[in-house]
């Protein structure tokens, strides 16, 4: 398949897969933490739920609506952090933020690597970071709704 050029850097197959079939896409009844995220610029809106026990994110899910980048980022995020200690999730949040906005940190992002192409599309960075900011707010129990604007 040819002819899509740089767009393929942004829209990789994994992104389409997670956009079409988002993982952990439901509310979490026994959540201990939740936060709402909203990007007023484009209208992306999501809620992240987490069940944190003994300092570990035992379960995580999200609901909402957004573009392919924000939906895939949220879906990939839930897969990446499920079962991880809160400190590790926080470290990943900071590294992801750096990867999407500054330069690529020296670590293995695994599947999340597919989101690195977003950095070349400044207008879309906030789509990719929304879910991560929202998760950060949820697990640090920040009271206000996460905003990427």
């Amino acid at each position, binding site marked *: 398949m040819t002819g899509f050029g740089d767009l393929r850097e942004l*829209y990789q197959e994994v992104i389409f897969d997670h956009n079409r079939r988002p993982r952990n896409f439901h509310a979490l009844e026994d959540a201990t933490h939740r936060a709402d995220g909203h990007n007023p610029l484009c209208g992306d809106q999501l809620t992240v739920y987490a069940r944190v026990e003994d300092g570990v994110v035992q379960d995580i899910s999200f609901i909402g609506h957004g*573009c*392919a980048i924000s939906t895939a980022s949220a879906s990939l995020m839930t897969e990446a952090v499920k079962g991880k200690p809160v400190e590790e999730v926080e470290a990943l949040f900071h590294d992801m933020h750096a990867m999407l906005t500054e330069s690529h940190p020296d670590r293995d992002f695994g599947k999340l690597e597919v989101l690195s192409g977003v950095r070349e599309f400044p207008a879309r960075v906030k789509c990719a970071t929304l879910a991560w900011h929202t998760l950060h707010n949820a697990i640090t129990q920040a009271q206000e709704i996460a905003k990427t604007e």
Partner: protein
Amino acid sequence: MNAPSHDTETVMELSVHAADFPILARPVHGKRLVYLDNGATTQKPQAVIDAEAAYYSESNANIHRGVHWLSQHSTDLYDRGRERVRRFLNAAQVEEIVFTRGTTEAINLVAASWGRSQLKAGDEILLSGMEHHSNIVPWQMVAEQRGAVIKVVPVTDSGELDMAAFAAMLNERTRFVGVCHVSNALGTVNPVEEIVRQAHSVGAVVLLDGAQAVAHQKVDVQALNCDICVFSGHKLYGPTGIGALYGRRELLDAMPPWQGGGDMIHTVSFERSTYAPTPQKFEAGTPNIAGVVGLEAAIAYVQEIGLERIAAHEDSLLQYAVQKLAAIPGLRFIGEAADRAAIASFVISGIHPHDLGTILDMEGVAIRAGHHCAMPLMTRYGVPGTARASFALYNSRDDVDVLVAALHKARRLFGLEDQSA
């Protein structure tokens, strides 16, 4: 979207004026720029760029100040701009034209001056459901201060104002009606003459938001009989940061100033100041003189081509675009009013408007993707936002063809069309 009144081929030749706009010659992402975001702002012809540059090179001085020659010259240019706007809107008197930073500031002026001085608890402000945030939020601010109530005229599924509901909502408490002449999100041309007639029957003041109208059709404030009409220069091929407010003379005379400062006073002492007559009393401080000069050049440019020809060209282009876009599988128009101007707003099943915006951008096609500063309207249609292609006098059928090809490409990328196609 009336039938073109000119021969289609002749009308389409208007796009030769693309050569007047230097920015259209610059490539974007290595592609020819296809600029279809004219509802957000239009590009500027060389004549406007030159007029602003010439003002600073040859004419710059503060107005209404010095006795020196240059100050008088600058004042003359400023006054000439006001007279040009008066003729453009066919206002009866030049004193009825107030310069502002744009539509938003003009509406804020009306809300702060007329609204705060006239509205009482229980008074009703009637706004259409298709208003831009700039014709909603200033009224919410003043309504909260004065205890007035905002009522919203519903919009039909096809994107027209529900005129039966409007008529039923008018009553003796209705003090103000705010409505866009042309909707920025839907393209709907509202029946403003009829709205004014009915609103006046209960004594309400009517403000027309002309931001999306004045570049696309002749707006005659005396024929429309509106009380206030506001617009921005930058959507009319002019500079940013300049716009104008038309207000009926008696209304403006009765309205208090909203900002204090130099140029808006008659006399000042520490005990009391008296104010200059309209329009100066609404223009505190040194105004955007270069902006007025640029706006004057923009109006002259549009008048030279002729608004009727521009309207016919854009109608023809919109009909062509609607026909081509309708053939794209999964495409749904948001706003299908019988009378539309220069705007096609749509969603495509399976692709978020923001993803469309990025993919089109990589093809050199600039559109607006989002809520168009009309969040209540997006909620009304149950969409997070739309993709909007909006046309200007320099657009061509070729531009529409590039747009349509890029939309097919987006569908292929998203796996919604055969990728070998």
